[in-house]
């Protein structure tokens, strides 16, 4: 990873966008990379749009993904895809709830970790770093269900999509 990886996570307040970006940042940090994660707080808990920028690599300067330069766009709410699509660079990867089978999740609140699992197949971050990151970001009793959701998302992304 000689260059900066730009990930934009988006969704609505309460969906765990910030939590997902915390886990991603922590995992990249545990790989010894420089990480910057930037978000807008404030009104987010009241159901409004939330976005969090995560950048990592050897050296990261601006904390925000420059417009149109996201390598990965992870969107937790289907109605927030179009709002954020322009942030994705040409050839960038879009990850949406359609990438996973939400009915397989024990808890719908762990969609954020499922989509991180899907994202993980594109990143050079070892599984144990992800697990450590989740352990550090969740209370012990919530770790297992989130790891399960992550693994589900990862498997779903590795298998060919059933959808056209």
């Amino acid at each position: 990873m000689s260059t900066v990886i730009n990930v934009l996570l988006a969704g609505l307040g309460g969906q765990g966008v910030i939590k997902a970006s915390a886990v991603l940042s922590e995992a990249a940090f545990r790989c010894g990379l420089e990480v910057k994660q930037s978000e807008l707080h404030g009104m987010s808990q009241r159901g409004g749009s939330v976005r969090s920028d995560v950048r990592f690599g050897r050296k990261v300067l601006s904390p925000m993904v420059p417009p149109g330069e996201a390598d990965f766009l992870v969107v937790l709410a289907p109605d927030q895809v179009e709002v954020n699509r322009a942030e994705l660079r040409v050839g960038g990867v879009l990850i949406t709830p359609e990438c996973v089978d939400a009915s397989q999740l024990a808890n719908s609140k762990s969609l954020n970790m499922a989509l991180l699992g899907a994202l993980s197949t594109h990143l050079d971050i070892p599984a144990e770093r992800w697990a450590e990151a989740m352990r550090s970001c969740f209370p012990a009793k919530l770790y297992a269900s989130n790891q399960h959701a992550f693994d589900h998302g990862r498997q779903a992304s590795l298998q060919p999509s059933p959808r056209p």
Partner: protein
Amino acid sequence: MSTTNRQLLSGNQAIALASRHAGVALGTGYPGTPSTEILEHFALVGGKAQWAPNEKVAMEVAIGAAYAGARALVTMKHVGLNVAADPFFSAAYTGVMGGLVVVSADDPGMASSQNEQDNRRYAVAAGVPMLEPADSQEAYDFTLAAIEISERWRVPVLLRVTTRICHTRALVSPRLDLPPPPAPHFVRDLRGRNLIPSNARPAHPRLRGKLAEMEAWNESCALNQVIPGDRELGIVTSGVCAMHAREAAPQARLLKLGFTHPLPMARIQEFVRSVCRCVVIEENDPYLADALRARGMVVESSPKQFRFGELNVDRVRRILARDDSPEPARAAGKPPELCEGCSHRVVFQALRDLDCIVAGDIGCYALGVLPPFSAMDCCVCMGSSIGIGLGLRHTLPEGEAKRVVSVIGDSTFVHSGMTGLAEMIYNPPSTGHVVIILDNSTTAMTGHQEHPGTGRNLMHQPTGKVVYEDLARAMGVRQVIVAPLGKDSLEFEGLVRRSLDSGELVVIVARRPCVLVAKHIRAYEKCPVGAEVTCPQ
């Protein structure tokens, strides 16, 4: 690469950790995005942190601590410094003994604020030194530097941060070798700290003398850095803009200023002369550009449109390219709304249906201005609802005056509503007035902080409690009605209608805990005094 000792911290957390490591004896402030987490984290890492009723009181408490020789931290959002400006300006004259760090968290782009005022102007106006960190590591380092500067020159130091510093998590290597802070003790200084005119007159030149010394010291201060690059393009910048600029123009020579008041003018002059073209990159006001031009330096600044909103790498590229063409509009996201089950919904439904003229205030309930309620006619600043409601009452024709209601949240009422209530008692409108205190038992908007009306301190432990109905009665309001809010707005609507019709001065305390925090409150209430560590978060 070793990660030993390094931590991933937001700028806010970094300020808190540095304060803790420096032995700050007291952290105080009022919640306000993007500053709020500083005190919460300071408490988490073992510091003594407390919420004040408002920023002015917080500033005064911090000044008192610094007079005692203790190190003190006071935090607020940018508009909070307006409230705290009075003691802030005077503390510059009296000076301090212990280090006093005043954190102003500015919000370029107004992610959650009513304006994008540039508090760098306050450093100039008050005559205090100012530091501007560019990332979390600098937030940590500059907090330590601020304490050092404050104690060396015995002045408060303004640590000016912005939303992207506060809310960006980045790597921080803390220092482990810090000496313990000096022990607090009282030193009487009658002439220094009593700003009667005969003492204040010598205090002003004394402050200017300190500023001149600091400017000279700043000329070689390590808080300012030159990043080497081509002489074709030079950039003078500070704060997070330095990061955007380095990324947008990696080839440029860059002067990144960290100690931004008083400015090291000779050093800047030398830098400007060393490059062919010099551009100032800054958010909000042309603070640096104006100061440099006033000294006769030839520098470029941004086209007008970049004065609005925060900068990013793309916008800096445009500035450097002198591109003032319209920028692509970003798609609007989904606006926030009052939560499902929020008690404010009942109130705004009633006010809408009664066609009230609503003087509103700052808090979640400002969302009452959005559909489906559209039931707020103004929202200006903390506590303004009562004064503005009274002004409307005094001057509108009677038929309209009778429809005016002031709506203010519980935390906001403690912050700045009590003086409004005194005004109402003292100068009552002929049609009476109705003030509704929306008591949801928390400072909801900023993330559920306690306040003097909740009866719990920053750590959610029980403490003294301000009871609004008792307070209003004691101040002389005869009609004080406590209205527990149900799910149905009709009952509340009837109460407001009767209150409006009475022509009297009425305070209604509309009470129901915030839906997001009710279960936490129940848990706090179960905890015995001093057992806060076992409370669920």
